[in-house]
Structure formats: structure tokens, C-alpha cells
């Protein structure tokens, strides 16, 4: 079974030459770049694991497959446009998602954006689909799946980038997303949220080897078909710090139905980076998890991840990181997961 797809991976790595420019310059002002990830993954539990990935105890070759293309255009002095189309884990190849499409204008210390934009809730939100850009095979689900994996809004944002000193940058960015419908499949259940607005702000403090990211978002929505209008306030705080070959990352997410956090430590020696992540979910989902992984940077644009993840339920029958209660499948609430993934950029 495992070998049947091996040619695909070899083919994929051949498609991406070892010495590549980071992207393709179509003209002086137009830049096309791309990214992708795919994985072989298997758990020891029949209950589908993780929203939009749904990994089970059968070896899965396309649960984690992502492919994206990004087009950046310099229009004229200060104006740029960017579009990103992504086949996300839950999408069919024939039906990818327009993840962002915006017009940006930079003036002095300000940057204005309008269009479809990424929700800036978490540390790696902006490159959530780019496996090459973060150490793990997947961003920790406890935090990153807390708002059901919604990643974009249609609206406006402004970012004020202020250099407090030579080594310290402060970014303050409020944003507002207009009315739209957000859909997500949770196992066999399709959820639809009629979102009235999503508005928020993030504040970043950035040094050359650290970043502190804090975010707040309020969403007003109705979960169809319910007529009840609900409001959700989401608070996030994350930090990353690197020193020498070490890197630390930690984040927490709090809203009225849940609290989630993780902490991760990564050590880089040569092309290998072993890492360990510990994560907890409370209230709505109840679990604790440890992930031990190894990333291997094969070339400047291709990396591999091998991961072993153990998730323990802290309440029998609770959904935890599954898409539904494991009781539905008559399964244990604990799960172990093995993943071998490959990431590339061009």
C-alpha cells in the first residue's frame, strides 16, 4: 500500500528542481509562486480525526494534501495586488478555494488592504497552508481548529507599522469583515454560519529573533437554521522566540466556549530539526496531546516531516480533536497518529 504512492512523491520532488528561485518572475511586476504539502497518515482509531482532514485507521494519502498558487502584482508606486488559490485539505482538486484576493496600498507607515483577507488570529495564520514555513506537519489543531478552521474574511484592514527602535517593530492592525456565509463539514454534519460581521484587531511586537502576537476578534452570526443571533469574542496570544539553534513557540486561544493552548520547542542542527509540542483543549473539546516530530530540509524548497502524535481524551465520549464523539464509532477516546509529510515551495 505504502509503495503504491511512492512514485508520486518522487515525481513531485522531481518536478521541483533542487536549485530553484523562490518564485517565477513572469515580468518585472508580476510574480507567481506556489506551495504544497501532502502526507501519508494513519491513526489507530476509526473515528475521523481533525476537522477537514478526517484521518482514520486506514492509511490515508490525501487527507493532508494542500496545493496553492499565489500571484503578486506590483501595480504602481505603493499599490500591489495579491491572489492566492488553494486546494485545501477538504477541497477536491477541481474545486479549490480563493483564499485571498486583495488590493494593497502602502503609504508611509500604513498599509491598507481591501478584498478577501486572511484572519490574523494566530502566529502562523498568514501562512497557514504553507507547510514549508512552519516546523510541524500541521499547525497544532487545539489552537488552529478552535474556530472550525475558518481562515478568511471579506473586508478591509489597515496596518500601522511603527519602528519603536532599531530592533523593535510594533504593528497595530484593526480589520472589519462584511456579511458572508461560512460553511464547514464536521464529519457527516454540514455547518453553516450566516456571519453578520467579523471585526477585530491584532497587535504584534517584533524583534529580530522574537515575535509576540495578540489578537481579538468579535463575530456576530446565526448558525443556520437557528434564528438566534450569537456573538463570539475570541482572544489570542502567541509568542515565538529563537536563540541560537533553539526555537520556542506557544499560543493560547480563549473564547466563551473553550480555552486551548500549545507550547512547542524546536532544535535545528544542519538539515534536521527535531521538535516536541504539548497541547491542551478545555471546555468544548477536552484533550491533551504530545507530538514528537522530525523535520528534514532536503533542499531549500523541499522538506519532510515525520511525526508521532498521541492525543488523550480528558472526558470519555468528548469529541476532543475528532470530528465527532468516538462513542459514535464505538471507539476509544484516545488516539495515536503517525504522519509522513512532504512540503515544497516554488
Amino acid at each position, binding site marked *: 500500500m505504502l509503495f503504491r504512492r511512492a512514485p508520486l512523491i518522487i515525481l513531485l520532488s522531481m518536478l521541483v528542481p533542487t536549485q530553484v528561485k523562490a518564485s517565477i518572475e513572469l515580468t518585472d511586476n508580476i510574480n507567481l509562486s506556489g506551495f504544497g504539502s501532502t502526507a501519508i497518515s494513519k491513526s489507530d482509531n476509526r473515528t475521523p480525526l481533525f476537522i477537514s482532514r478526517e484521518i482514520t485507521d486506514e492509511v490515508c494519502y490525501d487527507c493532508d494534501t494542500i496545493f496553492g498558487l499565489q500571484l503578486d502584482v506590483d501595480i504602481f508606486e505603493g499599490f500591489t495586488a495579491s491572489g492566492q488559490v488553494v486546494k485545501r485539505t477538504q477541497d477536491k482538486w477541481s474545486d479549490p478555494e480563493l483564499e485571498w484576493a486583495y488590493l494593497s496600498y502602502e503609504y508611509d507607515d500604513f498599509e491598507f488592504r481591501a478584498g478577501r483577507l486572511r484572519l490574523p488570529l494566530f502566529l502562523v495564520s498568514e501562512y497557514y497552508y504553507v507547510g514549508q514555513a512552519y516546523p510541524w506537519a500541521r499547525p497544532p489543531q487545539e489552537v488552529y481548529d478552535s474556530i472550525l478552521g475558518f481562515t478568511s474574511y471579506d473586508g478591509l484592514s489597515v496596518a500601522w507599522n511603527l519602528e519603536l527602535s532599531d530592533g523593535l517593530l510594533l504593528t497595530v492592525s484593526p480589520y472589519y469583515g462584511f456579511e458572508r456565509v461560512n460553511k464547514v463539514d464536521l464529519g457527516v454534519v454540514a455547518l453553516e454560519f450566516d456571519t453578520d460581521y467579523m471585526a477585530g484587531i491584532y497587535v504584534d511586537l517584533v524583534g529580530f529573533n522574537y515575535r509576540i502576537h495578540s489578537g481579538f476578534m468579535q463575530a456576530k452570526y446565526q448558525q443556520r437554521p437557528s434564528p438566534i443571533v450569537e456573538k463570539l469574542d475570541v482572544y489570542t496570544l502567541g509568542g515565538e522566540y529563537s*536563540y541560537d539553534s533553539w526555537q520556542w513557540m506557544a499560543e493560547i486561544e480563549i473564547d466563551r466556549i473553550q480555552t486551548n493552548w500549545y507550547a512547542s520547542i524546536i532544535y535545528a542542527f544542519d538539515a534536521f530539526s527535531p521538535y516536541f509540542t504539548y497541547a491542551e483543549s478545555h471546555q468544548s473539546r477536552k484533550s491533551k496531546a504530545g507530538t514528537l516530530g522530525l523535520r528534514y530540509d532536503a533542499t531549500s524548497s523541499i522538506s519532510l516531516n515525520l511525526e508521532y502524535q498521541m492525543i488523550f481524551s480528558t472526558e470519555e465520549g468528548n469529541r476532543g480533536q475528532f470530528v465527532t464523539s468516538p462513542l459514535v464509532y464505538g471507539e476509544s477516546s484516545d488516539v495515536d497518529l503517525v504522519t509522513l509529510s512532504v512540503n515544497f515551495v516554488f
Partner: protein
Amino acid sequence: MFKGLNELTRLCYGRILILLLLCCASPSTLAAVVDDGDVEFAIFSLNNDLPPLSKNKARMLYRGKSKKISGSLKIILVDLPETSIHREDFYKMLLGKSVSQMNGYWAGLAFSGKGSPPEELDSDDIKQILKWLNDNPNGIAYAPIESVPEEVNILITVPQGE
């Protein structure tokens, strides 16, 4: 529930404080750790209007976290080829990062619409570097200090600092 929340927030702010303290303490210690090579680098330009760089500023520029100097001058960086030993040494000395760590890092920047990796030269020959600088008046480059001609504007040396 709210009591718990408050405690959490307090805990978080405590952590930020520790993190901040750590960061303030790090530059001097980092310099001591990476000062092990024989090569000394110069970050330089052909533009005499560019002011000297502080070590912090140089680090911010080469991590793509800052693109301007003196508040308004937009800077362009150039990189040596990946095969160049100087590139490896330079990033280790200035940032304490390996080339593969930097690659992952640049991928994040490029795909978040926050910037693109520096343009890469075909060779680390000083003539090529000078030619690129000549074409890019707001460009800065790095090279081993002994290969850098005297008439260029050296903004900072690495690892010594100003």
C-alpha cells in the same frame, strides 16, 4: 470561570514580561556565542547617503522585519548563492540561523504578503556584487571584508559590530 480567565491573563502577561527580558538580554550574549569564525563580513553599499547600521537594525533587515532605514529610505537586499560558504557563515554570525532555517523563514514571509526573499546572485564574486550594487542605488550587500574595495560605504561589520 472569569476568575480562571483573569488568572490566565495574568499568567500570560507574566510570560510576555519574561520573554521581553530575555530578548533584551540576548544581543550581547548572542554576539559572544557566534564569534567563532575567522571571517569578518562587511555589510556595504555604493550609496554614500546610507547611514551606518546598528547591529539590531542589520538583524531586522536581514530577517525581513524591516525594509527601511532612517524612517523612509527603502532598502533592497541581495543574497549570495546558496552554494556559497559565505552565505552560511554570514547568517550564522549575524542571526545565529542556518541556511535551511532561513529558507523556511523566508517562505513564511513571501506567502504572507510581507516581503520576498532577497534576490540571489549567480556567484559570490565581488565583481558581481559591485555590479548589482551599481544597478541598485538603495541596495546593500555583504561580503568578506578583505574582498571589499576601500571606496565603498561600509555600514557595519559582522561580527565586530560598528
